């Protein structure tokens, strides 16, 4: 606890390019970018695979294999091969981390939309895309958002690893503290990441209220 107070009470930690606000912004920047890219890949693929049923086995197996990719190894490898300078080295591993939960949940949600519901929608004259976007996706929304939330939390927590290869973000406090044996910095950084991850979870719970129809929510809960 003392470590944490030391860290937070130190005014040097609150300003300048190495201050907490700057680090939080960096952290959010590449976490957000990674999540966005992952969503751009995983949402369409998950919807398409879930709706058509084609390529389901391949999609789920490769998503599971992607979970196995060690983020630290990827970060190090990408920096070694392409050099630092951009955020790309950390983006690639983080996207790989975020794609599986979004893809699998989107796929499961869309696939799980009640067959009677789809039958009624088609029977009333909806086209394929209309059935997908007006019926299946709204019904799958709770699962899709859960996948996004899991991905976001993992990305925020894992983005700390980027600091190992000299990138910014809250991981800096942890890695630097580790190297200089300054545990107040390490503990402070860890707590900040956890708080940030919890805030992200909270944001998704709020999004859930906005994006999920009360009709679907009432049915589930």
């Amino acid at each position, binding site marked *: 606890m003392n470590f944490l107070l030391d860290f937070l009470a130190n005014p040097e930690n609150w300003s300048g390019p190495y201050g907490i606000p700057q680090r939080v912004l960096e952290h959010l920047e590449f976490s957000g970018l990674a999540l966005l890219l992952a969503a751009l890949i995983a949402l369409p693929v998950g919807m398409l695979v879930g709706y058509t049923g084609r390529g389901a086995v391949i999609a789920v197996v490769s998503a599971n294999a992607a979970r196995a990719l060690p983020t630290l190894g990827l970060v190090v490898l990408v920096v070694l091969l392409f050099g630092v300078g951009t955020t790309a080295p950390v983006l690639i591993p983080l996207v790989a981390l975020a794609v599986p939960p979004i893809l699998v949940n989107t796929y499961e949600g869309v696939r799980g939309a009640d067959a009677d519901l789809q039958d009624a929608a088609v029977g009333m004259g909806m086209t394929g895309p209309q059935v997908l976007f007006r019926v299946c996706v709204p019904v799958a929304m709770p699962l899709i958002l859960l996948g996004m939330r899991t991905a976001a939390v993992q990305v925020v927590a894992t983005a700390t690893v980027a600091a190992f290869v000299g990138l910014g973000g809250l991981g800096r406090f942890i890695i630097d503290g580790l190297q200089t044996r300054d545990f107040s910095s390490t503990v402070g950084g860890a707590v900040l990441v956890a708080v940030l991850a919890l805030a992200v979870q909270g944001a998704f719970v709020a999004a859930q209220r906005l994006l999920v129809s009360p009709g*679907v929510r009432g049915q589930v809960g």
Partner: protein
Amino acid sequence: MITFEGVTKRYAGGTVAVADLDLEVPNGEITVFVGPSGCGKTTSLRMINRMIDPTEGRILLNGVDVATVDPPTLRRGIGYVIQQAGLFPHRKIVDNVATVPHLLRWDKRKARERAMELLELVGLDPGLAGRYPFQLSGGQQQRVGVARALAADPPVLLMDEPFSAVDPIVRTSLQDELLRLQSELRKTIVFVTHDIDEAIKLGDRIAVFKVGGHLAQVAGPATLLADPADDFVREFLGRDRGIRRLSLVTAGEVRLRDDNLIAERTDVVEARDRDAPWLLVLDKDSRPRGWARTSELPAAGTMAEAALTPYHGFGRDDSLRGALDAAVLSVTGLAVALDGDGRAVGTVSREDLLGGLHG
């Protein structure tokens, strides 16, 4: 008119769901497809709006081959109701009903007004419009399903076992409601069920399907019951086919006798001269009070003093089945025909009721 011309549906693997079906579904009537599971009745229905395409043959809707129409366009002009209603859980009731108007890009307010109008038409409280489907009972959901199918005022309505999932009391009220709606709207309705009673109650025409997708018989309900085409149809109709037939004939046509009606002020001596074992005693307004056994009349006095046995009556609009029920319930074996004001107009015996059926 919907016309099936040599329609066959064969699935990969060789299963034949529908075999060489020729059938006409007339406009403005309810045609019921009935049969056991696996007889192809649902497949036949779903080929009309191209949820399934036939392997061979064609289906004409008012002379147009449905295969030539873009499926979504075709379906927007055909109402479709399924067993579990298939309401969209994420949309309010009013938006569920307005689904097809929205697809057809109607003006928002017009679509909404139409939806409210339909909720009322199918007997739902307009206050339910803002609810979500999970907040409604099964029967209410099914009514919404019917309203949704009617929203764009399609001339044709396809109903696939729409009332199978609700309890018998709700089912009866939904059936009555459908008949009431149909008497107003005169839609061309194709109705699939496995329940022969439902088929007889609702159908203007009934198409009985056999397992393997063969059509066994197409007829009006009375003809079907009186004259089943083969053993399959006879068996499917069940053992009490004769009794069921009675429910299709109104009692208005039966011949009544009135020589056993007697006013309560009549003297018993005069009554004993009547050639009848039982006499129906009427009050001064001609309403029946009960049956008196001729052999047990008091020695003297008027009929008002005779011991009476309860009577069972039927109205002129009741079915023959109702009249027979009254006759069977009475120890006299006689049912009393009543007019709209409850006055006795005559009586009929079990024997005459059944005899009239074959006359």
